[in-house]
């Protein structure tokens, strides 16, 4: 069979081939936008669906509550709360671990498994081995993440200090749980599978170890459909209050779930911010290129119409061109997006420990990607296509009149100076086509802005690291205790080997309430003159703890609709559970982990207790660190040791693995946009002016002089776009900074000078590269045709 391609289509393909470089640039920009969209939303879908599937499969609870100790019989009362579907009691205990390959102590979270059968809620998915036997007190199952981090497997043993006794525990199974998808240790900022491990033990064994026979210290609940979560929590709190309940909370406040959802939200935000930028640029490029094609082909258009092709048929040729470029971009974007999405999901599996589904092709995401890119294509291309449709054959076939120029105000201004005619040509051309010049400028400026917006993340994170790790939290480690201790414990710690300096801290779980708004937080008690763990104002100056009243994180104040001087209801969720109205005397700007702060004495007064601490910040002499770790490992009552260096290291590692990859990608995209815009501008200038430039060569101008005329304009526009881009980038980052803030952290608005510098340099390199390519074409100009051909 002979495939018949009609002549118009043949013309279309040849036109496409002729502009292949520009076509590729446009399709690539479309592809980037689509790829970002597909990978972000595709990953969001995978995360959400995997999360929901995993939650369903493991029967993840709806409400969680911890308490000191309650008799098993209380379970029936809990089950009788209206709305409760299933209630399961258990024992949770923090233990210190002594691992052979680690000098520093690690923390373990021991969870009890029911004596018979599998857990009704928060089931453990066993990946290998089995559930520990209820009868064997030394058997545990651990998360496979923890096992992998320590190269442990089923059958291996490790030591733990359980309620003061060092015991050897044998691993009989490796599992996963919805409760610790994002496994944060006490006081940690980032999951660290070396420092923190989740493990399961038979209920009886655990009860025996912690003197909780016939009792429980944790309960989880699943709700009936339509039950009021708030009401269940309220009743549960009342029920648990006499047993040392520290306030029940809903799934949305469950730490791991909270982080996971935060990540999903953030991914969705960036998926919504970036793709439109790319598609806008693509639309702009399409408009410029197709307009130019229509302009150069006006005689052909006239001819086609004179032959009897109607307006629609002629318009369709150019519309097809637009569609081909968009569809090619869409296809490339889908491939690229799937690949990137796959990479993102692999990345997530290192931080979020749960079975992730494969990145499937989500028809919803694909359809919206297709629609969005087609809209961008039509927005960009339709104007140009309309020009082709509007041309009347008679007008189209007459030679175009020379572009008219005027001496505008700007020219008159420049005429004061002695400038060469080539330079004059550059300025006249820029001012003659102000719209096009501005669009090119904006296009290049956009890429500068995109670079700044991407690099701004790094600046922001560096600021967070600097403020948090080097100015606010300067301790080497923080020892936290299972139970509040008398303040004298600080002296004991001071005498441990390697301890240089100490600072006590007192943390109390509270619910802060402003009328109907409430938030579960901690009040941190600080000592005056603190040198290790300091409270800072927005200028990083130390704030002394207010003698009375509360210093509140601005973020919480906003959430609770509170302002300086307001009274906030503080409901303490532990011990005697006092409720007090406390005045907000200070608002604190914080980047990480938003809290409320008081003078440590004020906290103790609030708790109706004498000098009490829940933790000690310690600065350690690194030469004696191992001795200290060895001592702390064997110290009973120590709930956890949070090490700043390890936290910082894992924070940095996370940033390297996640953010830097994304930022590298955005930088590449920004360069691509700069290149695409500049290359299109240069190619169009070349096609419009090749005859003039060839004439100049005939008149005796050298290749370099002619190149100067062509690329001088690009140079000027790039130069103008740099400051514009910096301002645009500044504004975009400023606008984005609050959009990216989550309940966990703020991205402070900081742009370092180096960020502007790098953005400008990368964009200049990109533009210069395209200049070089164009220069080759100028060198190849055919001088002879310039003599004969008409424009």
């Amino acid at each position, binding site marked *: 069979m002979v495939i018949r391609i009609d002549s118009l289509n043949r013309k279309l393909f040849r036109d496409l081939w002729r502009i292949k470089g520009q076509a590729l640039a446009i399709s690539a920009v479309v592809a980037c936008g689509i790829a970002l969209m597909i990978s972000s939303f595709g990953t969001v879908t995978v995360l959400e669906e995997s999360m929901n599937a995993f939650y369903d499969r493991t029967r993840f609870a709806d409400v969680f509550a911890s308490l000191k100790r309650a008799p098993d019989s209380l379970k029936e009362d809990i089950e009788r709360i209206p709305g409760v579907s299933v209630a399961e009691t258990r024992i949770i205990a923090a233990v210190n671990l002594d691992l052979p390959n680690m000098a520093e102590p690690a923390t373990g979270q021991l969870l009890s498994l029911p004596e018979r059968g599998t857990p009704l809620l928060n089931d453990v998915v066993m990946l290998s081995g089995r559930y520990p036997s209820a009868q064997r007190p030394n058997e545990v199952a651990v998360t496979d993440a923890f096992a992998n981090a320590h190269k442990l497997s089923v059958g291996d043993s490790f030591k733990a200090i359980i309620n003061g006794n060092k015991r050897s525990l044998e691993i009989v199974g490796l599992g996963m749980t919805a409760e610790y998808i994002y496994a944060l240790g006490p006081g940690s900022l980032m999951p660290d599978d070396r420092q923190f491990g989740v493990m399961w033990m038979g209920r009886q064994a655990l009860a025996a170890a912690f003197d909780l026979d016939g009792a429980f210290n944790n309960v989880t609940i699943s709700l009936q459909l339509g039950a009021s979560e708030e009401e269940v929590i309220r009743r549960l709190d009342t029920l648990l209050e006499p047993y040392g309940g520290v306030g029940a909370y809903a799934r949305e406040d469950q730490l791991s779930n909270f982080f996971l959802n935060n990540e999903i939200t953030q991914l969705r935000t960036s998926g919504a911010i970036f793709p439109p930028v790319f598609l806008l640029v693509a639309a702009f490029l399409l408009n410029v290129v197709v307009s130019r094609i229509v302009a150069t082909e006006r005689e052909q258009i006239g001819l086609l119409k004179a032959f009897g092709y109607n307006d629609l048929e002629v318009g369709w040729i150019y519309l097809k061109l637009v569609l081909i470029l968009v569809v090619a971009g869409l296809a490339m974007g889908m491939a690229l997006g799937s690949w990137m999405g796959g990479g993102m999901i692999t990345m997530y599996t290192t931080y979020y420990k749960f079975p992730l589904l494969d990145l499937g092709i989500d028809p919803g995401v694909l359809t919206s990607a297709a629609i969005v890119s087609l809209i961008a294509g039509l927005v960009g291309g339709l104007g140009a296509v309309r020009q082709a449709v509007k041309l009347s054959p008679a007008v189209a076939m007459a030679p175009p009149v020379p572009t008219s*120029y005027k001496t505008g105000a700007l020219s008159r201004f420049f005429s004061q100076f002695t400038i060469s005619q080539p330079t004059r040509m550059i300025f006249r051309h820029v001012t003659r086509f102000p719209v096009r010049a501005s669009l090119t400028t904006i296009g290049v400026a956009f890429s500068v802005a995109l670079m700044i917006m991407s690099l701004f993340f790094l600046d922001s994170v560096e600021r967070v690291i600097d403020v948090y790790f080097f100015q606010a939290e300067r301790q080497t480690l923080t020892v936290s205790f299972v139970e509040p201790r008398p303040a004298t414990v600080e002296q004991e710690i001071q005498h441990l080997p390697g301890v240089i300096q100490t600072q006590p801290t007192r943390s109390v779980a509270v619910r802060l309430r402003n009328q109907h708004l409430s938030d579960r937080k901690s009040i941190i008690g600080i000592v005056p003159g603190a040198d290790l763990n300091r409270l800072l104002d927005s200028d990083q100056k130390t704030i002394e703890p207010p003698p009375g009243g509360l210093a509140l994180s601005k973020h919480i104040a906003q959430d609770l609709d509170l302002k300086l001087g307001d009274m906030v209801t503080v409901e303490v969720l532990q011990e005697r559970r006092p409720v007090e109205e406390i005045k907000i005397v200070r608002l604190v700007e914080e980047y990480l982990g938003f809290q409320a702060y008081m003078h440590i004495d004020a906290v103790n007064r609030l708790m109706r207790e004498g000098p009490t601490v829940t933790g000690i910040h310690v600065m350690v002499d690194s030469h004696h660190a191992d001795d200290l770790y060895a001592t702390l490992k064997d110290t009973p009552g120590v709930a956890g040791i949070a090490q700043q260096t390890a936290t910082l290291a894992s924070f940095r590692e996370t940033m390297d693995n996640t953010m830097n990859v994304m930022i590298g990608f955005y930088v590449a995209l920004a360069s691509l946009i700069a290149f695409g815009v500049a290359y299109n501008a240069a190619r169009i200038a070349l096609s419009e002016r090749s005859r003039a430039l060839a004439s100049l060569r005939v008149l*005796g101008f050298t290749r370099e002089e002619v190149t100067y005329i062509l690329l001088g304009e690009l140079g000027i526009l790039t130069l103008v776009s740099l400051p514009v881009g910096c301002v645009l980038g500044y504004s975009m980052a400023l606008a984005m900074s609050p959009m990216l803030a989550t309940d966990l952290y703020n991205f402070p608005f900081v742009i370092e000078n180096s960020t502007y510098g790098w953005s400008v340099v990368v964009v200049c390199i990109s533009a210069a590269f395209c200049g070089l390519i164009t220069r080759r074409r100028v060198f190849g100009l055919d001088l002879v045709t*310039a*003599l004969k051909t*008409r424009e």
Partner: protein
Amino acid sequence: MPDGMQDGTRLTETFRAEGITKVYETGGLRVEALRGVDLTLYEGELVVLLGPSGSGKSTLLNILGGLDLPTAGQLFFKDLELNACSPHDLTIYRRDHVGFVFQFYNLIPSLTARENVALVTEIAEDPMAADEALEMVGLEHRLDHFPSQLSGGEQQRVAIARAIAKRPDVLLCDEPTGALDSKTGVVVLEALDRANLELGTTTALITHNAGIKDMSERVIRFADGQIISVEENPHKKAPEELTW
């Protein structure tokens, strides 16, 4: 009158071409545009090249103007062997010695008449003032007009002013009146004639228009890439006397 002699004095040669051939090979197709052309042009003379399309006259003009190199043969501009020049040398040659006038004017639309001329005077060694060149073609009142504000004839006269402003040794004109009506064409030819007379520029003019040959000193006829005749014109006419 024998070649090279006028009133008994030996004339200075501007161009001497010997056995010039030019072969274009495109896509397996071999086109012999010039097939052994011998020709000498003398200082200050005005010659008209006549011939049908594809006869090789434009190819020769391009080679004379340093836009193209011959495939074989020797070409001298005074003592400069053009066929041995590098592209850069040819650029310098064009810059210093050649003025071009094109059929479609090839003015820079973003520059005024004066600026279009200044474009060339800025890079020439001993140019006349742009205003002066425009005055020679009778455009002293249109100095600050852009090409789009000028008629076709005026645009071509700007092109001539641009070509002569550097006081070139040779003026090469390819169909300078091709896009103009006869009345306007005469005005353009007058400008060329005046430049030839006042500056003593060797002028070669391609035309399809046999009527124009009467203003030349010699008429060179082309066919099939060869010169078929060289005709002296003892009764040179002024452009206003021409009709076509």
